[in-house]
């Protein structure tokens, strides 16, 4: 909403001490958490991160991820991998049942794998389609997963909410029922979903399968969660201030400073690929590496991001992997500082040495024109759009003519501007717990095996070798080295340069304790949360 | 008249009711330097009727409204004395005025169709007067409303009380309006043009009602421009002009021996049997033009317009149909005026429309100069349209308000463009308008001037017949007189025939050679004007003539009173 209105809001709120009474430390049994979330997805389970937030409350995954990247047991207590890296054997707990009574066993998990890769979850397919071959239940508690090629990030990948295990009985109900009320083994069940308003979760009193990094075992302390959808940031933040919600998602940057003083603010930097500029390497002016590098030098991306986000969101210079992801290469982040002179030199060297009347570079009569379509309001927030506009202004001084095209959600998701002749830079992010994201984004895009996620259309064998090597090795230091080299290569050749990390933030009111964000995707976990007074 | 007011609904006012006493009243409106009313003094006594006579702009309505404190926003009212029943009215607050209005003074406006709330049943309007002054409870008020309606002579009062003004006839409406004014038996009744736009018979009944109220002891202030109406009812008359009273006295004095020339002119201007053949406004000069070649109509020859057995039916609600015109025939000789007189709903306007071939008759036909007129096709009629033109009651609605006078008149002139301007000038001369009027818009002209423009437009194509449908009904008496004189002069000079339609018998008697009396679509009586009006054969015509209020003249030798 308009910044002016929100500033007015701050001014008024500053004058009020807030309607919340002073809170002590005495623990209270039960209660219902009222949580204000931003976006409402069409279904609770699915391949979109918004769906993972919801499904995390009702589904357990096989493993969980610690903040430092270590994988810890969850539904799977133990695992081994074969010599050739292609067969993984998981040992499952034997005392867990789905909330509809179906027992959790290896066959159920195998059914889930088949379901996902059969179209049930497009993101799972993006990760595993190239690697998964089959799975089978050896016995009730032993599951064998066979891959077509070694894939060492498998465990980290399995910790995400997309890989939550659903009851096979429930899956048989069909899409409509599973969309609304997926059934799992998790700490809560979906009691009701009033679309446009809220999802009501009820405690699963028989819960006994908390992950190893949970704060306690057994059922949740609170009786339920009322997961409200409050898309307007003023309303959402205001509801926390007025005490109508206990915890909210996505603190508006403008409130960041105040919120940090009044509430418990947790910030989670989403691992994976940051919001970055991915250059089109097969068509247009960015085919020439020098032009790409010139663009990277031509704007002070760090200063712009820090100004626009007022410290709420950190700058990320690495264009392929974000800070907070395991195997992140931090050196790469400093690769392209603001240096307009260097940019100018590079452009001259690349042949764009003449300037037209408006100050744009030209070469053989053609203007140096860059087209950047972006998902206004969908992929990028308002602040993100502001960052792009600031970049557009700055690079103009060096001679780049940038055309920004805000694209509507339906057009963008309908595949507009997805072809190489339609855009020069792709702006987007991808969440992933490990640097395995590199494989998704840089696997070759070929006519016989297209890779729509390769937004730079960069088919480089050297890069692919590095990535596949890293994916295939189990030796952590080797993996780290290879991933680091891959990121370095991407940076040296300026295939992509970073802007800022995709960040989620949570603000918790003083009456609620022990809400934490899980490490793989930043979903809020309420299983350990309790009220105090 | 058998109508009397039920004694139960009126009472003889008590002795303290002395009526109004006004001395040297003057009213000035904001934005004008000159006072609208100046130096007016009058006295309204119980049981007597004072008539305030004047034309539009004379200040009579303003005076009447000032008597009830409704002069208008921001007006400044000053008087040496302004008393009602001995109570000083100057400086009264609105609350106190409200106690007076409706209770001590009853006000009757003209045209009940707009003076009663069109969306409410008339019973509610009458009841409102009772309710506002806290009279009885709801049931008692309902009964009182029925009583009042029957007292003013409304048949089936229970049914009528639930009907809206547009569902009642003109006469019933006006009676309901009077009932609402008389509801609390006020000591003073002020009636502002109570009979305008009413049929003659109905007018007579309304005047009877007012007279009965007066006889019961109310003081009656009657405001009217119609001297005949005034003469019937008034005991005293005050003549107003430009905000001042120019003459005042008993009715007999003022009407039979007026001292002021304005009064005299007003009296002379009333058309009737006595004024036939003479000018109504002899003091206003009419330029006599010599008709140009071809201007004059040929006085010989057969009838210019003839109607044979005209019938016209209109579909009514459901499957019924209403016969508006049922077998009407007439003929109009060159240079003659045929008057058609009747009350509302008699079908006279429909006859006019058929004469102009604007409406197809369901049976019968009209002949123009002996040739088929209504039976002819449109193509044949169009060039002949210049032979018969029309002038209506409200010229404003038949002019395009954005057009100048010049364009309005030139539109009817069938001549090449360069000659049109000259012809427009000529026509303006004919109707006695100064040439400077050409550039003006009709909205800026007075009623009389507009009507002259309408006549000029009708004359432009050199017609043989002019249909005048209530052409002077909306004009002030003196202006009406001038326009009638003009029409007479034009007929003399040009030999044009007139089909003159009006509900005003006096006017018709004044202008017509022959007369048609219509009722419910049929011709009830026809013949020579004098004969029909002075010795009517048919009972309806007799009734009409008897209802007409007569103005007593200063020359008693002419005609009967």
């Amino acid at each position, binding site marked *: 909403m308009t910044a002016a209105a929100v500033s007015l809001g701050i001014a008024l709120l500053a004058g009020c001490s807030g*309607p919340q009474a002073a809170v002590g430390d005495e623990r209270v049994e039960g209660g219902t958490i009222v949580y204000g979330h931003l976006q409402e997805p*069409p279904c609770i389970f699915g391949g979109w991160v918004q769906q993972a937030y919801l499904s995390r409350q009702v589904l357990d995954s096989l493993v969980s991820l610690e903040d430092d990247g270590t994988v810890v047991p969850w539904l799977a207590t133990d695992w081994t991998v074969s010599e050739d890296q292609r067969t993984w054997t998981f040992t499952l707990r034997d005392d867990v049942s789905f909330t509809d009574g179906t027992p959790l066993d290896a066959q159920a998990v195998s059914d889930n794998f088949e379901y996902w890769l059969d179209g049930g979850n497009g993101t799972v397919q993006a990760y595993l389609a190239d690697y998964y071959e089959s799975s089978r239940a050896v016995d009730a508690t032993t599951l064998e997963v066979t891959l077509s090629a070694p894939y060492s990030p498998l465990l980290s990948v399995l910790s995400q909410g997309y890989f939550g295990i659903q009851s096979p009985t429930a899956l048989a109900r069909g899409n409509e029922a599973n969309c609304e009320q997926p059934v799992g083994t998790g700490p809560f069940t979906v009691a009701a979903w009033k679309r446009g308003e809220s999802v009501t979760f009820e405690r699963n009193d028989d819960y006994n399968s908390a992950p190893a990094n949970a704060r306690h075992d057994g059922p949740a302390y609170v009786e339920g969660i009322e997961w409200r959808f409050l*898309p307007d940031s003023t309303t959402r933040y205001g509801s926390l201030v*007025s005490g109508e919600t206990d915890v909210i998602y996505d603190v508006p940057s403008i409130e960041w400073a105040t919120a940090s003083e009044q509430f418990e603010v947790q910030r989670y930097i989403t691992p994976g690929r940051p919001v970055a500029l991915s250059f089109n390497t097969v068509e247009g002016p960015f085919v020439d590496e020098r032009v790409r590098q010139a663009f990277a030098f031509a704007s002070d991306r760090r200063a712009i991001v820090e100004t626009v986000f007022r410290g709420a969101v950190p700058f990320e210079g690495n264009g392929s992997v974000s800070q907070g992801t395991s195997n992140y290469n931090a050196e790469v982040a400093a690769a392209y500082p603001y240096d307009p002179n260097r940019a100018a030199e590079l452009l001259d060297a690349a042949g764009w040495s003449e300037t037209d009347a408006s100050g744009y570079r030209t070469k053989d009569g053609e203007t140096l024109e860059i087209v950047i379509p972006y998902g206004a309001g969908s992929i990028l927030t308002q602040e993100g759009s502001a960052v792009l506009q600031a970049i557009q202004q700055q690079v103009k001084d060096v001679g780049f003519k940038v055309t920004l095209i805000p694209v509507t959600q339906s057009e963008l998701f*309908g595949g507009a501007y997805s072809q190489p002749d339609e855009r020069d830079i792709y702006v987007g992010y*991808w969440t992933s717990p490990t640097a395995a994201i590199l494989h998704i984004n840089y696997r070759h895009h070929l006519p016989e095996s297209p890779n729509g*996620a390769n937004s730079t259309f960069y088919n480089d064998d050297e890069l692919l070798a590095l990535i596949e090597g890293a994916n295939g090795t189990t030796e952590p230091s080797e993996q780290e080295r290879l991933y680091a080299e891959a990121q370095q290569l991407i940076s040296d050749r300026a295939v992509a340069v970073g802007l800022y990390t995709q960040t989620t933030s949570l603000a918790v009111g003083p009456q609620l304790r022990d809400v934490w964000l899980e490490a793989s995707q930043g979903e809020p976990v309420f299983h350990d949360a309790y009220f105090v007074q | 008249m058998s109508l009397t007011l039920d004694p139960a609904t009126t009472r003889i006012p008590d002795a303290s009711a002395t009526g109004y006493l006004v001395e040297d009243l003057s009213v000035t409106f904001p934005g004008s330097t000159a006072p609208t009313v100046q130096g007016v003094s009058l006295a309204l006594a119980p049981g007597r009727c004072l008539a305030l006579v004047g034309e539009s702009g004379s200040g009579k309505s303003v005076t009447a409204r000032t008597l009830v404190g409704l002069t208008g926003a921001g007006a400044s009212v000053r008087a040496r004395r302004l008393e009602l029943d001995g109570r000083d009215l100057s400086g009264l607050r609105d609350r106190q005025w*409200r106690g007076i209005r409706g209770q001590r003074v009853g006000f009757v406006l003209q045209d009940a169709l707009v003076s009663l709330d069109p969306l409410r049943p008339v019973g509610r309007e009458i009841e409102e007067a009772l309710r506002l002054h806290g009279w009885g409870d709801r049931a008692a008020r309902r009964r009182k409303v029925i009583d009042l309606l029957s007292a003013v002579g409304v048949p089936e009062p229970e049914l009528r009380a639930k009907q809206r003004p*547009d569902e009642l006839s003109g006469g019933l409406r006006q009676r309901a309006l009077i009932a609402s004014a008389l509801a609390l038996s006020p000591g003073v009744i002020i009636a502002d043009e109570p009979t305008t736009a009413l049929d003659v018979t109905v007018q007579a009944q309304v005047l009877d009602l007012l007279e009965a109220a007066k006889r019961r002891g109310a003081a009656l202030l009657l405001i009217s421009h119609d001297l005949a109406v005034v003469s019937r009812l008034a005991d005293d008359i005050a003549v107003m002009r430009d905000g001042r009273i120019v003459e005042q006295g008993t009715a007999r004095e003022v009407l039979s021996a007026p001292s002021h020339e304005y009064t005299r002119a007003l009296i002379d201007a009333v058309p009737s049997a006595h004024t036939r053949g003479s000018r109504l406004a002899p003091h206003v000069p009419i330029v006599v033009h010599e008709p140009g070649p071809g201007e004059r109509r040929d006085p010989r020859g057969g009838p210019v317009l003839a109607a044979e057995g005209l019938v016209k039916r209109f579909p009514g*609600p459901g499957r019924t149909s209403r016969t508006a015109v049922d077998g009407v025939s007439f003929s109009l000789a060159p240079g003659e005026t045929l008057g058609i007189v009747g009350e509302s709903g008699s079908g006279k306007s429909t006859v006019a429309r058929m004469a102009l071939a604007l409406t197809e008759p369901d049976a019968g036909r009209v002949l123009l100069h002996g040739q088929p007129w209504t039976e002819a096709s449109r193509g044949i009629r169009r060039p002949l349209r210049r032979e018969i033109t029309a002038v209506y009651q409200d010229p404003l609605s038949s002019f395009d308000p954005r057009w100048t006078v010049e364009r309005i008149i030139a539109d009817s002139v069938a001549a090449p463009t360069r000659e049109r301007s000259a012809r427009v000038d000529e026509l303006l001369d004919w109707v006695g308008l100064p040439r400077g009027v050409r550039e003006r818009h009709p909205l800026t002209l007075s009623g009389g001037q507009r009507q002259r423009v309408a006549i000029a437009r009708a004359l432009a194509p050199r017609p043989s017949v002019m249909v005048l449908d209530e052409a002077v009904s909306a004009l002030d008496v003196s202006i009406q007189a001038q326009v009638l004189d003009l029409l007479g002069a034009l007929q003399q000079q040009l030999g044009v025939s007139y089909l003159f339609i009006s509900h005003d018998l006096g006017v018709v008697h004044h202008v017509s050679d022959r007369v048609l009396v219509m009722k419910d679509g049929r011709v009830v009586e026809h013949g020579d004007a004098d004969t029909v009006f002075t010795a009517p054969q048919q009972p309806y015509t007799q009734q009409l003539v008897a209802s007409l209020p007569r103005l007593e003249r200063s020359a008693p030798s002419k005609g009967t009173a």
Partner: protein
Amino acid sequence: MTGSAVDEQPLKRRVGNGVLPRVLGRLASAVLVLFAAASATFFAQALLPGDRATLLLNQRTGQTEARSDEELAPIRAEYGFDDPILVQYADYLGGLLSGRLGVSYQMHQPVEALIAEQIPATLLLTVTALAVAWVLTLVWTIATTRRSSRIDAIGSGVETVAAGLPPYWLGVILLVVFALGLGWFPVIGGSEAARLVLPALTLGIPLAGFMGQATRAAFERALEQPFVTSARMRGMSDLGVRVRHVLRHAALPGITLSGWALGSLISGAVIVETIFARPGIGRVLVSAVNSRDLPVVGGIVIVVALVYVVVNLLVDLAYSGVDPRLATE
């Protein structure tokens, strides 16, 4: 002279109740309207640029990639996107005629259930907003018409300003001042009535400004009519005249506008629903349009068109209620 019998023909007869044929006629044209709305929706959704199957798949994963034909084939088969456009249109119409609004592509729910769940909140908000607008208009018009020239000017000026207030701005201001600042109303949640106040005001105030301008003009005209003078001459106070007589005459333009307003309020409710976190079909419609979820969009458009038709019929009937003269034509 007998007096009574001569001229007592009423000028207009009371017509027998012509309501039923009018209603039936309206319903017949309503069917045509719905058909047109459904067809327009279908073609708009089907013919927009961009591939629908890609859109569906991308939305499910939150990605914006170009998709291969293999990936898209199952979706295309499931929803019939490969059929020629006229075949799809015929299928769609056939479904509508047999009473099926279809199943949402995204939410896998039958559209009827979705709409039935969401529409009561929107209708409640819309009707309340309209009622609020009426109250504001009437009070303001009665209070400020034809007083002093200064009051007239202020009254008219306020109406103009109110009419121009954008709902998203007004909503946030009301929220910040009255809910967050003063705490008079809940920001979210709370009892039903309290939750409605601010959203209804957000929609109602601009509408009141708009309706006020039309009502004011009619009010002024009616104040000049002779029947008002008659009422005053019976001793009625100024306020009484305004409320008891003039008000009814001035209501007609407002009633005309209400018919239009109700329909436009439904579609404008999406902004208010977003700010105040209310459920309703506005938001559902917007997200369905964004994801080109044709069954949902089509269903909502048809329902809204139906509401328009019903409301206009009610407005028509209201006319004759307010001004019975119109009934006798």
